């Protein structure tokens, strides 16, 4: 328990000191969202129809900027070595790192998307659906991104993107559908997203531990 508390505080401190981790995805998201009306169309109906998908794509791409390097710094500077020396639970390490990364990168994007929807004429009656699907979907994407980051440690980031993007496709489809369809169909998509979350958390966490361990064999 002491380790959990200490490690969580350490991660929060590192993210709060390293502002680029938070600012880069936010800037990327803002630019993308602001450019879509200029590049596609300024027709409110057209933008409103495309808005859920556009928001989801922007969040996915913005999230990729930081999640793929989630273990890189600890691997490069030797911090991961210390976790093995002290026999800390790697499951706790992986879960805390993913959760803190989500708080500092995905959460600001979700909050920001609430205030940016007006640019895309997103129907306000579906805003809660969008937020709900983003909360669950970004968590799943964080787990997939962490796995991609663990597998591509010490290699270039193209590999991480190549692993992460196909894995994230179901989340993208379910998430944008949950934000598009009428309220009676929402429960179905949200439940599917929740099922995917509960399925991916244990499996991807264990896969992450194995992928990190591979780099020490």
């Amino acid at each position, binding site marked *: 328990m002491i380790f959990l508390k*200490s490690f969580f505080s*350490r991660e929060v*401190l590192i993210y709060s000191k390293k502002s680029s981790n938070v600012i880069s995805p936010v800037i990327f998201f803002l630019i993308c969202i602001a450019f879509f009306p200029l590049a596609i169309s300024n027709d409110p109906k057209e933008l409103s129809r495309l808005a859920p998908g556009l928001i989801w794509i922007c969040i996915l791409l913005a999230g990729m900027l930081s999640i793929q390097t989630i273990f890189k710094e600890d691997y490069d*500077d030797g911090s991961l070595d210390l976790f093995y020396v002290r026999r800390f639970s790697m499951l706790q390490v992986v879960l805390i790192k993913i959760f803190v990364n989500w708080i500092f990168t995905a959460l600001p994007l979700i909050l920001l998307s609430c205030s940016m929807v007006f640019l895309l004429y997103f129907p306000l009656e579906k805003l809660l659906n969008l937020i709900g699907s983003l909360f669950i979907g970004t968590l799943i994407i964080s787990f997939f991104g962490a796995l991609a980051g663990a597998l591509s440690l010490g290699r270039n980031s193209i590999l991480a993107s190549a692993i992460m993007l196909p894995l994230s496709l179901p989340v993208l489809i379910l998430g944008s559908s949950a934000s598009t369809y009428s309220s009676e169909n929402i429960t179905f998509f949200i439940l599917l997203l929740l099922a995917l979350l509960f399925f991916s958390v244990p499996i991807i966490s264990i896969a992450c531990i194995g992928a990190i361990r591979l780099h020490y064999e």
Partner: protein
Amino acid sequence: MLTIQGLSYAYSDRFLFKNLSFDLNPGEIIQLKGRNGSGKTTLIKVLCGILKNYEGKISFFTSSRSDVQNEIFYLGHKNALKHDLTIIENLKYDFRSDEIELAKLKDALRTLGLEAYLFTKVSDLSEGQKRKIILSSFIASNKSIYLLDEPLINLDEESKKIVSKEINNKIKKGASIVFTSHEENILAIKDINLDEYQA
């Protein structure tokens, strides 16, 4: 006490070292020698449990492996410091110094001449100063086994003397130390040349 019997480690179908055996008793110090790539860092990592796919037997003096892990101080080739944090923040959250009182750490930092940099970001320090941060944990720590990979690297002559003196103090208190270094005739009572254990 640490006993190594028939230890071998292969990397990419090539043995870095083969059939290595030695004992490390309390109050004893061993220097690992060898040319670049002979496996000094790998052996340190095997001994402290980072690398596991070795052949042979590593026995510590207690039967409980988890207890032993708490008695090991590991200083790697990499410092495991976070560049955006200050010295004091790094030491607070470093898992080598989390059990050490802050006052002791500050004393050790003072010994190494870093007292004026407590609130300086690590990114603003030189490589030698970064090494000194972790060495301050080493000085303030009270473990029974120390596994040190190039502890004196990047240090000036004065700091080398201070660290060497601290190593001798720990030996006198009964600690066991294994360290790697390319420097000749420093500290070690006995040395192991890994070049002699190549396959």
